[in-house]
């Protein structure tokens, strides 16, 4: 298990205040964050820009040293034995970085493999397997500069797996990718966790992706941990608003009765005329679908259209960000 306890990262930056004067400012990029990742689990790390996601990932991957706090990977301290940890973790960033464009995919993987101490038949075989895993067999011996964005991103995944890490950190892995390529990558990520038993930490601005992939999610804001749980639990905790839209046929008096009955049950209702009948917009802090259908049946109305909108992770993040700004 990868565990971070009371993790802090502070920076001192100098702000220019005049021609010759500068003022020191303390930036708390990460402040008292606790998190854990189990093998075979996909964990999301969410937050708006500047929340501290990338700093956290860089500390977990040994690139940055924490100001205080501890990070252990299967019991080994990251700060005390960085080279041992580097064999167990790897990071994949979105975009087109972290690859040598003048080398081919195979040459890139061979190079990074050697830097991880692999050699001979083991290295050749690992490269061949990874090239196949990410579907770059045909382009394996073409220079990376000729690759499309999606191909480069797939090669990045192969690079991230060259040391067969137990824990993989994915920083915006589907950034700027076309929908089909992004979908393929999501499948690969899921397989890495569920089939190959790798612990994965994922940051992404595509919240549907996080909701689809992650078993658990950490939400951070200005370096602080705001919330932690399964995506469903976070949504239930943060966003308790359900929307229901329905079209019913009948008299105006029926819709008035329906409105009154729903309002008795703490449902906010607005009624409009539409071509097909009365259009009702309903909002409540609970799922009112069953109550609504029961009332429609009791009155003998014909339900022509029913559309329920469930809150998602995006709603939760936006609400949390709004609450945080307000406080």
């Amino acid at each position: 298990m990868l565990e971070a306890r009371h993790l802090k990262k502070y920076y001192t930056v100098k702000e220019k205040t005049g021609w010759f004067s500068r003022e020191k400012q303390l930036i708390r990029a990460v402040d008292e964050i606790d998190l854990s990742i189990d093998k075979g689990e996909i964990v999301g790390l969410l937050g708006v820009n500047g929340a501290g996601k990338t700093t956290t990932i860089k500390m977990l991957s040994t690139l940055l040293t924490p100001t205080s706090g501890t990070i252990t990977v299967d019991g080994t301290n990251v700060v005390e034995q960085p080279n041992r940890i580097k064999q167990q973790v790897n990071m994949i960033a979105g975009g087109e970085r972290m690859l040598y464009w003048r080398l081919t995919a195979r040459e890139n993987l061979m190079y990074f493999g050697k830097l991880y101490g692999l050699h001979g038949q083991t290295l050749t075989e690992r490269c061949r397997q990874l090239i196949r895993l990410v579907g770059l067999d045909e382009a394996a011996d073409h220079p990376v500069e000729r690759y499309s964005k999606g191909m480069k991103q797939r090669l990045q995944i192969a690079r991230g797996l060259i040391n067969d890490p137990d824990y993989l950190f994915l920083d915006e892995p589907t950034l700027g990718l076309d929908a089909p390529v992004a979908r393929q990558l999501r499948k690969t990520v899921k397989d890495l966790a569920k089939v190959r038993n790798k612990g994965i930490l994922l940051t992404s601005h595509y919240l549907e992706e996080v909701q689809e992939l992650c078993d658990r999610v950490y939400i951070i804001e200005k370096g602080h941990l705001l919330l932690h749980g399964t995506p469903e639990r976070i949504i239930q905790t943060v966003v308790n608003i359900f929307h229901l839209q329905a079209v019913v046929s009948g008299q105006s008096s029926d819709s008035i009765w329906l409105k009154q009955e729903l309002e008795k049950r703490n449902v906010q209702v607005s009624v409009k005329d539409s071509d097909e009948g009365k259009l009702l917009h309903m909002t409540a802090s609970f799922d009112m679908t069953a109550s609504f259908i029961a009332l429609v049946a009791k009155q003998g109305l014909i339900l022509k259209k029913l559309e329920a909108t469930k809150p998602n992770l995006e709603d939760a993040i936006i609400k949390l960000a709004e609450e945080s700004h307000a406080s």
Partner: protein
Amino acid sequence: MWASFSATFNRQFMTMRRAYPWSFFIGHILDGVYIIIFAYLSYHFIFQGQLNKNFTSYTGTSNYLSYAMIGGMLNSFSVSLLMIVSRMLITEMREGTLEALLLTPSSRQGYFLGAAVQGLMRSCIEMIAIFSIGLFFGLKMVSVNALILIPVLSVFCFAIFSQALVLGSFMLVFRDTYITQNTLFVIMTLVSGVSFPPQFLPGWLHTLSCIMPLSYGLNLFRGVVIEEHWSGSMTQDLFLLFGLGVLYFIAGSIFIKRTEKTVVEKYFG
């Protein structure tokens, strides 16, 4: 260390084979050739072959053209090797591969050594090109004793490699290559005795030559190939060059480690 060395050597070799920086190659050769032609023209047509009487006492030779041409040749070699090694990390940073490199548990010394040894191939090609041009303009070598020349060149390469580590750290700190490297190269060419003995310079500038591996390298190389004798002062220069190399190596290794950390915190944090 050796895995890192061979990986970097191969990577640099493949990159060079695929996209050789001809502009750098021509630029370095032109610098050397310019020193040769300038020395030839000024010696023959301005000074009419007359030398200041102090020249011989300072340099131990009256063969000014060979003196200046060897200066140009070794200066180009040093500049080339310094550039190849010192620009490695900042190039990684600019190309977005620095993080991927720092994620690996590889040895940084092996990485730089791989780049240096591969770079030596390119620098040697450039030196041979300048040497060939120098022969047309009157370069004369009295003797080339490989048994002495090889250790001299090895120590010289080590010292320049070490100096490149320090230069590379400055480049990372300033996030600049052009001004940083050229500031060093201008001072190095001026004070190291490339085309005139440093003793002609004011005392404080002459002192600067003591921290330039190139000045010791030139004394030794010239002593071996145009003066045909090995003096006590040359043994002293060889030890000083090695000592300077060790100092630069220690300082460079520490600086590089620190600046790597600063860069990651400042720009990727």
